[in-house]
């Protein structure tokens, strides 16, 4: 039982990260029907952005929790900038070509960003500064939970709630929803679709960037290649919840995190990375529209 609860806590932690990244996938897919392969790389760039901020600050303030938020801000801004740029330079010129071209462009963008970072930052792992505050551990009935885990969960929760409010309560959010339902009609009623698409990429990338920094603190290591696997898993989470559906992505992310950590504990830890793919194929087989999605496939 203790192991079970411990695994649930770990699963919710990674699940929150998947959910944050899955939101970006699902938003972009909802609006331009593109599987943004480069999204995992945007997450990786966010992790590097946080690292750069930490390096600038130096090691003198490791007990100050404000640093965490500074790093998160840095990662978010860098990711936003890259997400915006990828959309402007790679996707926008071919938005109206075939789906195949779009997918391949996204693939190209992903490989490009990976190698771009590898050339700039080197191929070896880089370490995050370990902050004493974050390593504080609370133990309850033998179940350990670190402040870091609480932080990840809390940040993800706050972000998801505010995103939900933003999309459902503001004019801009409505414009986003309208564009995702029907871009042409949205344009007719005076929505600037290009701006909305850019905004979608910027918001999604920002969330991925924050996730990157949070994971950087959690595992302590970043590398240019971390984006690929996490990206695919987050995409699985988005499909699991029903792609195009924001709340679905949130639930899908948490669910995937839980399934993965329970699977690793009770089935096989060697095949931990395979679970996401098996779930992906299973969900496509059983209910391709996802848990909450409308019938579309």
């Amino acid at each position, binding site marked *: 039982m203790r192991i079970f609860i411990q695994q649930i806590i770990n699963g919710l932690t990674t699940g929150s990260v998947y959910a944050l990244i899955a939101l970006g996938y699902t938003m972009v897919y909802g609006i331009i*029907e593109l*599987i943004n392969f480069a999204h995992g790389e945007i997450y990786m*760039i966010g992790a*590097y*952005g946080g690292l*750069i901020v930490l390096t600038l600050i130096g090691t003198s303030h490791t007990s100050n929790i404000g640093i965490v938020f500074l790093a998160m801000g840095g990662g978010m801004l*860098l990711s936003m*900038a*890259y997400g915006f*740029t990828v959309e402007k330079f*790679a996707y926008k*010129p*071919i938005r109206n*070509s*075939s*789906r*195949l*071209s*779009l*997918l*391949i*462009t996204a*693939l*190209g*963008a*992903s*490989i*490009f960003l*990976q*190698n*771009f*970072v590898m*050339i*700039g*930052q080197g191929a070896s792992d880089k370490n995050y500064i370990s902050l004493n505050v974050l390593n504080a551990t609370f133990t309850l009935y033998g179940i350990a939970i670190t402040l870091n885990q609480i932080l990840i969960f809390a940040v993800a929760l706050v972000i998801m709630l505010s995103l939900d409010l933003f999309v459902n309560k503001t004019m801009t959010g409505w414009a986003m929803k309208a564009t995702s339902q029907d871009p042409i009609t949205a344009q007719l009623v005076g929505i600037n679709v290009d701006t909305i698409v850019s905004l979608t990429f910027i918001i999604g990338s920002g969330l991925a960037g924050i996730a990157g920094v949070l994971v950087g603190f959690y595992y302590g290591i970043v590398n240019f290649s971390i984006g*690929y696997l996490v990206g*695919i898993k987050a*995409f*699985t989470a988005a*499909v699991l919840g029903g792609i195009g559906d924001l709340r679905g992505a949130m639930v899908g992310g948490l669910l995937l995190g839980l399934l993965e950590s329970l699977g690793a504990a009770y089935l*096989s830890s*060697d*095949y931990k*990375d*395979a679970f*996401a*793919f*098996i779930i*992906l*194929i299973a969900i*496509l*087989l059983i209910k*391709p529209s996802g848990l909450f999605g409308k019938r579309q*496939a």
Partner: protein
Amino acid sequence: MNLRTSIRTILKAYVLPLAWIFAISIPIMGLVRSIFAGVFVFAGLLVFNIFIRRKARVQKSRSRLTYTGLSFAGRFAWVFALAAAIIAPLFLNGYSLDVFTSVLFYTMLALGLNLLVGDLGLLNLGYIAFYGIGAYTYAILSAKFGIGFWGSLMLGGIAASVFSLIIAVPTLRLKGDYLAIATLGFGEIVRIVLNNWDSLTNGPNGIMNIPRPSLPWIQLSTGIGFFYLVLCFIILQVYLLYRIKRSRFGRYAVAIRENERAAEMVGINTYKIKTLYFMLSAFFGGVAGVLFASKQMFVSPDSFTFIESVYVLAMVILGGMGNIAGVMAGAFTLVVLPELLREFVLYRMLIFSLLLITMMLFKPEGLLGKRT
């Protein structure tokens, strides 16, 4: 146009992108490389605006459904390429021969993948898994059951086809995007299983001492002998592919690619055709895998990573989707070019990805176009 507007235009079209790229590159790349990145974008925009935007780009891919036979130049090119492939190995040193043998392997793969991507317009991002399944089938059969090369050849292909069904049955009914991502997942699952099923695949260490093929009277164990063996397989494969292309099924496939709903309306069982093509494509991958294993005499999961799938896909795209000769040219280019650019090894993948993106932007149908 007065001076002020032209200055504004230049600012907006060139200076702004340059400055932006420069600014966002600095945190990742540092100052010097960021200047290069900015200049590169500037040059790219210049080329784009001067040479490409000026011409009105009205490109409609006209695909003919009828097979018109080869032109004289086409025939000549085939004969020339074949002659070159037969004569060239006699004058090559061991290293170059290795490079050219790997051209042949990638050609087989690219031709197999082209069946799916080119003829049907379906994306498979885990194609290398079938290559891996073929290679491991031979490795395991020879190590555990003592089955030789010729016996394993068909079995490798069949194993790949059977596994392809696992992925084809659930996903071929869905939209293309889902297929792409599901095949990617499948490729990863195969690699993870190969990596972890120690009792069968010997895990990350791989399987060693795989026998080379043998034939009476003919020496196949040398580099040259093996080269010719693979060449024979490619000739056979190209012949088969042309037969398929000219058959009813080939035309069904093109009809599905051009308009799936219309194809369904005229009574084509699109799901069946797609599944058939998927299996066939996997079969070619599996056979190539058996050949690969016997060339290397060693298999390990490292040879079958995602990026290899992307490489094969890029060969199909570069040469021209659906065009057999084009795909072969694409495979040749993408294997030989990196060998020639060895000094730029750090920038190789960067150039490769830019090539993919620009290709999609300007000539999505590939260098030699889409021909049926």
